[in-house]
């Protein structure tokens, strides 16, 4: 089970790192990229939890649609958080 433990811990650490970065970053475009990174970390967790159905939807929504939406928002509003 060593791979499972390793992966869980790794993904957990990665997700916290990216969450922190996304929340504290002032450049919103970078924050959107970080939140994509956080979604990728969660994707590993979902795969380890054998939730393939979720993963198929989650990757589409979280890595793709949210990033696209956020980039659209940033492009139409402000890029930097005051």
């Amino acid at each position, binding site marked *: 089970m060593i791979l499972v433990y390793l992966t869980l811990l790794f993904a957990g650490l990665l997700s916290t790192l990216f969450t922190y970065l996304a929340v504290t970053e002032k450049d919103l475009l970078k924050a959107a990229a970080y939140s994509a990174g956080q979604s990728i970390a969660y994707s590993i967790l979902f795969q380890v939890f054998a939730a393939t*159905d979720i993963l198929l*939807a989650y990757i589409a*929504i979280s890595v*793709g649609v949210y990033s696209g*939406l956020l980039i*659209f928002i940033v492009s*139409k509003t402000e890029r930097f958080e005051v």
Partner: protein
Amino acid sequence: MGRRLLGLVFVYSLALALALVVYATGSLQPPHEIKRLGVFYVEETFFGNMTAMSPEAVTAIVWDYRGLDTVYETAVFFLAVVAGLAVFRVSKTPPLKRGVGLTEISRTSTKIVAALIVVVSASIALHGHLTPGGGFQGGSTLAIAPLLVIPIFSYYALLARRLTPGLLVTLRGLALTAIGLVALLPVFKGLEVVTNIRFYPAYILGQLVSGSLLLYNSSEYIAVASGFAAVFLYLSFEEEFHEEERGEDHE
């Protein structure tokens, strides 16, 4: 940078502290068994007495055992698109012109990739009752194709191919109506709404289609894809165009 690093250290130490507290209470262990209800679904979904005739327990729950949830969940997505359109509504579509787009290489590549995406997404949606996947997953995969076209060719390419927001919303409405009708039809035979196997055939020509699951999945596939396409199409109208539409709201 120094402050952020400090914050990061704080966050990780907080996580460690929480983890130690949780570990010390000893109440949290990864379960070796799943809930009785989960086992019930796994056992019944194909072989049991209360079968949905689908080897895919998740899709069986999503569209059959708890089908009502999903019908209303699609309604939530539909309402979100409609609310977005109500906020962004424009009285006319923008005039066609040549968009900015990206490089020639990416255009050529995108054409091939788009065709492959449609095939992959159809496979995901049409095998929803057999393997992981389903209408929503397939539809959101299909939506990559127009989403790629929008930045690479500019959205005028979609408008020129008659993929206007109006058409997409109509398509979405029709697909959702199909979902609603599939849920409604058993009522006319005196059964409950979203009934599956007692009304719809499980096999067609010897091939397993799991009753209404295939119908739901294929309708949802179109609905989700057109919904995403409509959302992003509305988002990509230029700001000047919205400024022209600007007006006052009267009570």
